[in-house]
């Protein structure tokens, strides 16, 4: 269609320009056209290095396509397309421009063949996406956006330092397998880990995503963490540590998700849980596990997008998103309800829905490689994800107690976007071969054998039974208007409070020391004045030091004058 050397992100940058300069239907049409044209072009792009240039002494590769990067390229195009359709009604130019540039940065990052190019897109991801949070235009969104930006930029800075160490160690900027050897390996690993929402570094996600605009969260959920998953899959496949980090990521968020009231925050926790499955797959590092990780990233973008879209629709139509304020919406939002349930079934990995065909690969790989305990954790997380994302989200938003809210289904473009995502969820679930043919490795895996289907269905339905039982017994934690503390409490409360107290003490000590010293000085002065004053004669009286300075200046001036006259 056009030059092969033109990297796919360029069209999105042009899209950002178009979004900034056009309005109304024209903007909508052009913005929808961009991911379609770019995606169709990408489909024809073969593997290989398509663009490289020399910068100083280094070989930069801004455009490298192989099966791994192409896979992420495809899903980012699909995600951008769905998100743009979903936000067609939005008139806010800031959001439209930010969405385009953000999608472009993510696509640029996955085709980056060297660490410096990766760094540039890594930072662009942060700077473009934060506007989707700020666009909510509330004080909470502003401060959450700030915290988000600081964490993201921190990740970028660590990546840059790591890349510089890496260049010094190896003499190459190429972004291939890195591994945890040397300080460079660790620094880059930490940089990827922050963006990937590793435990203790995850709060930027659960803090900021729920504060973004209804459409912004949909776009945010698709890109940043998946770019990090891609980067880990490229740089650290087979790193044992990732198995354990990933297993922790699948388990700890589900506890928070069960008690959280803000339903988009529940989804943010569940996003970490799903990324955990991918990280485990990358850590195991076999062909099956990597396929599982990549295909799960592919599916997650769609079904998590669908869930965020359905909750965005609820927020858009009712102005509220807390489970405690919602309920009974199925009465007047039937389309959103059904589409949300499709997303919920997909994330829960019901057979015939997309989550099943990818998550089972990671689980199989875990047990085949002897990670028994990790497998049990993943199994627990699978039951848990059904509990909080599969049941809780649709139940508290659309059913539960009737809140009396009679909001209608959202505008047609939002319904259409959700419908497309739902079709993809079911399509991939029924015919996984299409997805498998795009994967980096050919493993001949078949998810639909009696063992898997039966085991997964049993696990899920008995989780549902547990939900029903707990509800009937009144043991299920009710949705309460509340805030739940997470690690972000450390930098939002503990550290600021500690600093405040520390400075209060410092000011106090500083004040008293000053006072004491001044008092002593005063006493000294009085003492010398008394000593010098003697009988109180004219010469021994105390004069201000300013007088002395003045007289010195006068004498100097006199010298100068005499010297000049001579």
């Amino acid at each position, binding site marked *: 269609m056009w030059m092969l050397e033109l990297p796919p992100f360029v069209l999105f940058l042009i899209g950002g320009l178009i979004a900034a300069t056009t309005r109304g239907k024209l903007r909508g049409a052009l913005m929808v056209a961009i991911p379609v044209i770019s995606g169709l072009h990408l489909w024809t792009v073969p593997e290989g290095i398509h663009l490289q240039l020399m910068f100083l002494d280094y070989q930069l590769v801004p455009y490298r396509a192989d099966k791994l990067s192409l896979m992420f390229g495809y899903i980012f195009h699909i995600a951008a397309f769905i998100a743009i359709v979903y936000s067609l009604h939005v008139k806010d130019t800031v959001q439209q421009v930010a969405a385009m540039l953000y999608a472009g940065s993510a696509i640029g990052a996955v085709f980056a063949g060297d660490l410096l190019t990766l760094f540039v897109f890594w930072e662009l991801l942060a700077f473009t996406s934060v506007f989707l949070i700020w666009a909510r235009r509330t004080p*909470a969104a502003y401060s959450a956006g700030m915290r988000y930006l600081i964490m993201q930029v921190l990740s970028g800075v660590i990546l840059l330092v790591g890349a510089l160490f890496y260049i010094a160690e190896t003499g190459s900027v190429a972004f291939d397998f890195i591994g945890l050897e040397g300080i460079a390996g660790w620094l880059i690993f930490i940089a990827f880990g922050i963006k990937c929402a590793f435990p203790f570094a995850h709060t930027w996600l659960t803090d900021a995503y729920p504060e973004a605009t209804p459409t912004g969260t949909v776009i945010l959920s698709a890109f940043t963490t998946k770019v990090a998953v891609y980067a880990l899959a490229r740089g650290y496949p087979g790193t044992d540590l990732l198995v354990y980090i990933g297993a922790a990521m699948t388990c700890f968020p589900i*506890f928070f998700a*069960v008690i959280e009231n803000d339903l988009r925050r529940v989804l943010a926790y569940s996003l970490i849980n799903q990324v955990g499955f991918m990280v485990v797959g990358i850590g195991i590092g076999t062909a099956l596990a990597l396929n599982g990780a990549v295909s799960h990233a592919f599916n997650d973008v769609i079904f998590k997008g669908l869930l965020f879209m359905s909750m965005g629709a609820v927020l858009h139509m009712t102005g509220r998103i807390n489970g405690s304020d919602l309920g009974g919406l199925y009465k007047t939002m039937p389309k959103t309800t059904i589409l949300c349930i499709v997303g919920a079934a997909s994330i829960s990995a019901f057979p015939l829905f997309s989550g099943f065909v990818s998550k089972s690969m990671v689980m199989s790989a875990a047990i085949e490689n002897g990670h028994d305990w990790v497998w049990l954790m993943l199994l627990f997380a699978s039951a848990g994800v059904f509990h909080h994302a599969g049941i809780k989200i649709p139940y508290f938003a659309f059913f539960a107690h009737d809140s009396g809210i009679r909001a209608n289904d959202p505008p047609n473009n939002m319904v259409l976007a959700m419908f497309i995502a739902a079709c993809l969820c079911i399509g991939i679930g029924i015919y996984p071969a299409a997805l498998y043919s795009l994967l980096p490795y050919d493993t001949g895996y078949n998810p639909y054998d*009696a063992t898997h289907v039966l*085991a997964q269905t049993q696990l899920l339905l008995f989780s549902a*039974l547990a939900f*029903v039982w707990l509800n009937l017994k009144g043991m299920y934690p009710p949705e309460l208007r509340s805030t739940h503390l997470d690690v972000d409490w450390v930098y939002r409360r503990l550290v600021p409070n500690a600093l405040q107290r520390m400075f209060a003490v410092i000011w106090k000590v500083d004040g008293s020391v000053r006072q004491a010293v001044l008092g002593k000085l005063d006493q000294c002065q009085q003492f010398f004045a008394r000593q010098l004053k003697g009988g109180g004669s004219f010469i021994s009286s105390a004069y201000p030091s300013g007088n002395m300075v003045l007289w010195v200046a006068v004498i100097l001036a006199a010298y100068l004058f005499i010297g000049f006259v001579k």
Partner: protein
Amino acid sequence: MDNEKQYLFDKPKNIQRILYLLYACCALLVVLDFVIHRHVYHSWENLPIFYPIYGFIGCVILVLIASWMRTFLMRPEDYYGPVEEPDNSKIKIVDVSHDHAKEANNNNIGDRNVDA
């Protein structure tokens, strides 16, 4: 709101139907566990109905631990800052307190019917 439309789950009977369907599916899955031969990768899978037990107990433990976590993690909603109240001017909200009373009533009647 007596003239408001009756929706699917306004009738407790329909909720009961869904629950019975779930119970039936669960029972069927337990039976299938003994009928279908499956590959076993992990020794725990040899236990009869391993997955149903694991799923059920896993979820109960999950909820119990999460509820316990509330005792020390929960703070007022405005802990980090003031919370904006949602704008009610643009959406339609019906009064359901009456419906709730009716629902509760229906539930009682339903219970009595079952007992009878």
